């Protein structure tokens, strides 16, 4: 119990140890400015990991998040080229992302198809739609308006807007997960679907909302991504869905559903983000980099597996105590 309680502490210590290791190779990495840069770079991963967390909590998985991101990012770029003002673009990509997520959710809810199959399919469909929209053409830096590109990078109180958006989302998501009936339902549906039904929670509907939420977050990230890298094409964020799942797993979100914490998901994403950002500067041969990333994930999962059986029950008990 004490070990499980300190799950986030363990992860926190692992992050500190990682930073110390990097410091010994490249001291400059730990400077505040550099750490802020890492935080900004990891923001998309954190936002997506939260969405994925909601989905995984309900015993599902969303493999279409990166494709959703890419499609919404492309639509944001196209709308910008058509002269649509930025606030409207933001609303539109969030709505579009939510709709794409809801489509996953409907299939899982109404047709009872396993989510891994549904999202594997929609992943390809969403990428395909980008191709149909653009004929495979890119949207490039000079085709985007200055304001469109500048918004996520504008520095406000020492941090770029993109980082602030991430922080606001983390806070809002924590409230949603821990303080609303829907948040409780995510845990209940994943922890024990049968018991959830007896308490009057619709499993399918809850999963539907988890997918919709994940989709909306992916849609917003789509704009942030395209604006940050100033380029949109079919393959942006290719393979990123796996990073998102990895961040959740490292963060201790039980892949079987029903257990996990917001802090865990955020720290899992941060851990992965630090590894990704540090590897280029610590002077490790690129041929080893993939092996190192993979090992870090495996070690974290090994930690996870040790306590997973009990974890589900403990977290539910936690929720019970809060009543």
């Amino acid at each position, binding site marked *: 119990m004490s070990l499980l309680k300190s799950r986030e502490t363990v992860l926190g210590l692992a992050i500190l140890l990682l930073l110390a290791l990097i410091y010994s190779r490249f001291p400059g990495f730990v400077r505040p400015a550099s750490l802020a840069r890492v935080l900004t770079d990891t923001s998309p991963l954190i936002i997506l990991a939260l969405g994925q967390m909601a989905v995984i909590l309900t015993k599902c998985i969303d493999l279409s998040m990166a494709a959703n991101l890419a499609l919404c990012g492309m639509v944001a770029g196209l709308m910008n080229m058509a002269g649509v003002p930025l606030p409207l673009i933001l609303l539109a990509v969030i709505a579009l992302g939510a709709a794409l997520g809801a489509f996953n959710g409907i299939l899982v809810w109404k047709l009872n198809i396993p989510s891994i199959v549904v999202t594997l399919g929609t992943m390809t469909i969403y990428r395909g739609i980008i191709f149909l929209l653009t004929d495979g053409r890119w949207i*490039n*830096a*000079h085709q985007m308006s200055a304001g469109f590109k500048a918004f996520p990078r504008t520095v406000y109180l020492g941090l770029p807007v993109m980082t602030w958006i991430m922080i606001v989302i983390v806070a809002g998501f924590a409230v949603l997960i821990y303080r609303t009936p829907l948040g409780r339902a995510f845990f209940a549906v994943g922890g024990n679907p049968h018991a959830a039904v007896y308490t009057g929670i619709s499993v399918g509907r809850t999963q539907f909302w988890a997918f919709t939420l994940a989709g909306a977050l992916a849609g917003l990230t789509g704009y942030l991504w395209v604006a940050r*890298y*100033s380029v949109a094409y079919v393959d942006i964020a290719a393979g*990123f869905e796996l990073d998102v799942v990895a961040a959740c797993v490292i963060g201790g979100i039980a892949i079987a559903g029903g257990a996990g914490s917001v802090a865990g998901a955020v720290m899992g994403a941060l851990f992965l983000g630090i590894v990704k*950002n540090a590897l*280029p500067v610590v002077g490790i041969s690129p041929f080893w980099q993939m092996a190192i990333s993979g090992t870090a994930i495996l070690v974290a999962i090994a930690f996870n597996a040790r306590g997973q059986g009990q974890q589900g029950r403990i977290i539910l008990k936690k929720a019970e105590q809060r009543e």
Partner: protein
Amino acid sequence: MGILTKIMTTAAVATALIATSASAETKRIAIVAKALGIGFFEAAAKGANEAAAELGDVEIIYTGPTDTTAEGQIEVINSLIAQRVDAIAVSANDTDALVPTLKRAMDRGITVISWDSGVAPEGRQMHLNPSSNPLIGNTIIKLAADHLPEGGDVAVLSATTTSTNQNIWIEEMTKVLPDYPGINVVATVYGDDLADKSYRETQGLLQTYPDLKAIIAPTSVGIVAAAQAVTDAGKVGEVNVTGLGLPSEMAGHVKSGASQSFAIWNPIDLGYAATYIAYELASDKAEAAPGAEISMGRIGTVTLDDNNEGAMSDPFTYDASNIDEFSSIF
């Protein structure tokens, strides 16, 4: 689509028939694109017309399928054979699928060459590559060195560790490195052709090597991401991003100053050269055989290797002076 193809084929046939009756002496050279409506090939057609105007007795038939399929190209080539053109210069959608059709064309005495994207040796008389690995390797380091008269540190941002093209180009670049005294290649990093990873690797380079003067990215995703990372780091003017990219993708970064110049083939030159070579071969002024030298007009001559392949020239350099003209093309 089917209707469109038919209309265009009919139009092409009609044009050809009119042309045949007009003059029997004129060499009719067909430039077959991977697909119609692609800027790159439209530009090549422009070059082909330029060559035709120079040569005088040449008529260009620019054609291609409506989408990039081998089946579409076979249809187009069959109709060109029926029109009895003198030469076919094709950028192939498939190395092998076009071979039987092109063999048939050659059997009828039509000169067949491939350019840009090649056909297997038995299906063409020669193939014109836009450039060659040694020329590209030399160009990418020269692009960096040209803006560093006093030398300095440069780094390479490649695609993946297993990308064959990039690895060969970097190898060729390393071979000619002694020709550029003062230029130190301090690192080679890999962005995996992902915008986010390339961006992070660039940030890593900027932190690790504060004196870095240039980043060479011989990959279109990498060069754009690196230019954006340099811009965001406020290092425009200090670090020059160069390498291989497309004008339409790089226009913004050339204007912002993040990239002084970069290179890629020039489609106009490519169409010009392909037409010139097709003309030389069709009028028996040259023969396509290993070791042969064939004129490409203003571009020079191409020398064929054992596979009857030749390289046109160094990649063409794009900078602030010509980026606007080409960014609308491809």
